[in-house]
């Protein structure tokens, strides 16, 4: 009996120690991820930043043109080709597109870049009109949020811009309480356990990111695959196209981003990326009108150019009617250089005007 009691006590102690050690391991990981291991917390951002800083160190006095956007920019803009083309004008163009990024995360990432000492001369900000539509309980960008990849101060900063701040907080808390589960893919990438010889996590439909931040889709797409992808896009986006009500919080984020650029002397242009005709057909007249009104108001108020590239690329160049295939990226990049980038770079900056009211 005494031995049995001893065994039970020992087991209980073991169980409690196991729980305590597990909690301690999670705490240690959480602190490390929050403070030092940003490449585990937000590996895509860190990879982009490292490449940008490497390019800047190669051409330290070059004028920096940064294109900030979502996966559409990530897949769609060959910044390396633009940099090569503008080499004589001592200009470095870098593609800072990241998956799932909308106006709020663009503001967060711009603040991160400025804190890291990256001061672009020109900033092209991707604007996707559907992200400014408040048709559901939260906007589409909030569906894509991953609070675990933000720092504590960033989550606090972002809360006023969220229609569901508790959701963001919950994601962050989950990421810090159970980092081994939430960040397990990033931890494995950190240990290079899933990496392949060409540096890609296995398996992947995306190619390797080039030195200027462009990450193309690897393969061509068959008509069947394109149709399936387009249908998936419809299912994902269609609920956000019902009616139009301007979402104040993302609009405020874009406004604050423009204000920040003005304060820092960064020249800005707004860029609406290419979309296929199937995607454009989702827009209702109310949404078109509402989005156009917002963009033109901001463009006029801040005197920033608005580049509407929605119809620049034919349907055959899209993977799923809104992400470009490599040949689509080539076509878009060429037209972007001729019709937007070069003219803007050559234009003289206008004197700053009085900032509009919020």
């Amino acid at each position, binding site marked *: 009996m005494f031995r049995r009691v001893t065994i039970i006590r020992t087991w209980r102690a*073991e169980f409690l*120690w196991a729980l305590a050690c597990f909690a301690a391991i999670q705490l240690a990981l959480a602190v490390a991820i929050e403070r030092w291991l940003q490449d585990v917390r937000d590996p895509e951002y860190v990879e982009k930043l490292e490449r940008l800083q490497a390019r800047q160190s190669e051409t330290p006095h070059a004028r920096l043109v940064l294109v900030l956007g979502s996966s559409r920019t990530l897949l769609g803009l060959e910044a390396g080709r633009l940099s090569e083309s503008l080499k004589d004008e001592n200009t470095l163009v870098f593609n800072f597109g990241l998956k799932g990024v909308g106006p709020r995360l663009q503001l967060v990432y711009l603040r991160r870049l400025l804190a890291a000492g990256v001061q672009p001369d020109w900033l092209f900000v991707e604007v996707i009109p559907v992200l400014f539509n408040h048709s559901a309980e939260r906007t589409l960008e909030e569906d894509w949020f991953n609070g675990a990849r933000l720092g504590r101060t960033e989550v606090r900063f972002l809360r006023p811009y969220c229609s569901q701040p508790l959701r963001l907080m919950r994601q962050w808390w989950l990421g810090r309480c159970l980092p081994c589960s939430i960040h397990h893919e990033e931890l*494995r990438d950190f240990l290079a356990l899933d990496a392949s010889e060409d540096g890609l996590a296995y398996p992947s439909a995306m190619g390797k990111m080039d030195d200027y931040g462009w990450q193309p889709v690897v393969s061509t797409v068959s008509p069947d695959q394109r149709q399936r992808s387009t249908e998936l896009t419809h299912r994902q986006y269609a609920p956000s196209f019902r009616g139009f009500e301007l979402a104040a919080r993302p609009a405020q984020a874009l406004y604050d981003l423009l204000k920040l650029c003005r304060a820092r002397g960064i020249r800005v242009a707004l860029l609406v990326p290419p979309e296929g005709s199937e995607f454009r057909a989702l827009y209702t007249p109310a949404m078109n009108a509402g989005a156009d009104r917002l963009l033109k108001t901001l463009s006029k108020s801040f005197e920033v150019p608005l580049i509407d590239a929605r119809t620049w690329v034919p349907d055959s160049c899209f993977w799923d009617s809104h992400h470009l295939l490599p040949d689509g990226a080539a076509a878009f990049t060429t037209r972007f250089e001729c019709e937007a980038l070069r003219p803007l770079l050559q234009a003289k900056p206008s004197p700053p005007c009085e900032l509009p009211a919020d």
Partner: protein
Amino acid sequence: MLFCSKQFFLFFAAVFVLHWTMPWHRLRVVLLVAASFYFYASWNKWLALIICATTCMDYVVALGIERCRTPLHKKLLLGVSLAVNLGLLFYFKYANFFLDSLREALEAAGASASLPVLQVILPIGISFYTFEALNYTIDVYRGRMPAERNILHLMLFILFFPHLVAGPIVRAKDFLPQVGRRKRRDWPRFHLGVQFFLRGLFKKLAIADRLALYADPVFGDPGQFGTTSLWLATLAYTLQAYCDFSGYSDMAIGAAHMLGYKLAQNFNLPLLSTSISEFWRRWHISLSSWLRDYVFIPLGGSRGARWRTYCNLFITFTLCGMWHGATWSFVAFGVIHSLMLIGHHLFRDYCGRRPRLDAVLQTGTGTALRIALTFLCFALSLVIFRTQTLASGVTMLERMFWPCDGKPIPLYMHGYWITVVVVALGHALAAGERWKDLVYRLPVPVRGLGYATMFTLAIVLAPAAGRAFIYFQF
């Protein structure tokens, strides 16, 4: 739901808490039956109803067998159970295989036949619970156990969720008495269950699923890869198969312990076997013992002439191969193992007449060689087992033995070698049987840290895409 999924953790936590807070044993049985039904119905509720229906049929048949006075009636009733259970197994698992094979044979002979293609969903775990049901009715027929009076107890025997979908194949005479006994909270048993479960989770997530990353691309298209890659992938798949299946068994045994039930051991370090005969006494013990008791021995076993024994081995292991799946690859797997067993019998007799040779084989070096050869034979048989078709299996074996160039495995190999070393170390510790002493001599906080680290590693190392257990498809 997979054992290593969040849904299962929540499900099991709920069942565990409800089970042990209920003061009445009968209600606990009802709870476990309901939970097991829910567990299976989460895959397909109609197939769950089929299992319940066949269990009810076996319940009635067993009672009838016990009450019958004439052997003929007993046989008839047993025949009904065999026909229904094996008939369903044949329909769901083998019908299309035989129809396709017949079609191919007719086309090869120059005749054409429009044979139907049956649209069937293979019920998960059908091979396992069919064998358990047959074990019950056959044992009642043989008078080895009484028929179960309580239908819920029989339902629990068949449906018990830890072993329902991928074994171990439980014997009714071992399990049913446990259902009848009232359960008490037994903390050392719970502790044992947690250890088993954690070990199984680690084997599945951190080892088996990780090794699958190296094996899958090669087995998917063996013609593209070079000889070295093929051998590395074969080693990876051998360890993957062992860790996947034994990991599942460990989790099943652990979950059962935590609920107060004991399931039989299913693996006993089979990769350290010194012969193929020993291998089958250590690998999937519940299946090999079932086949021994209900196929091999009824055929005559090793009584009678040697050629008769070899025939019985051939039939038993061909059926073993077919049990795994309805393709010619699995049949070939079974045939290969039967031939290896026959070969081992012959070699054993040969050594028996040569004491010196026998003595050499019993030395340390001889034992190491025998283990290596057994491992190699098993690994090569798995090439046929794993490839999609017999033709691609043969292609892969050809490329393994005739050096050829090809692509390397598209992943950095340091993770591969670390995993292989971990498996080797684990086997070395377990083989010495001293690991338990070593572990229990460690201070309690260190043991706690060990468990926490193992759990964390299992979560971190699990690849992105969750994988079903290999034996779910059987």
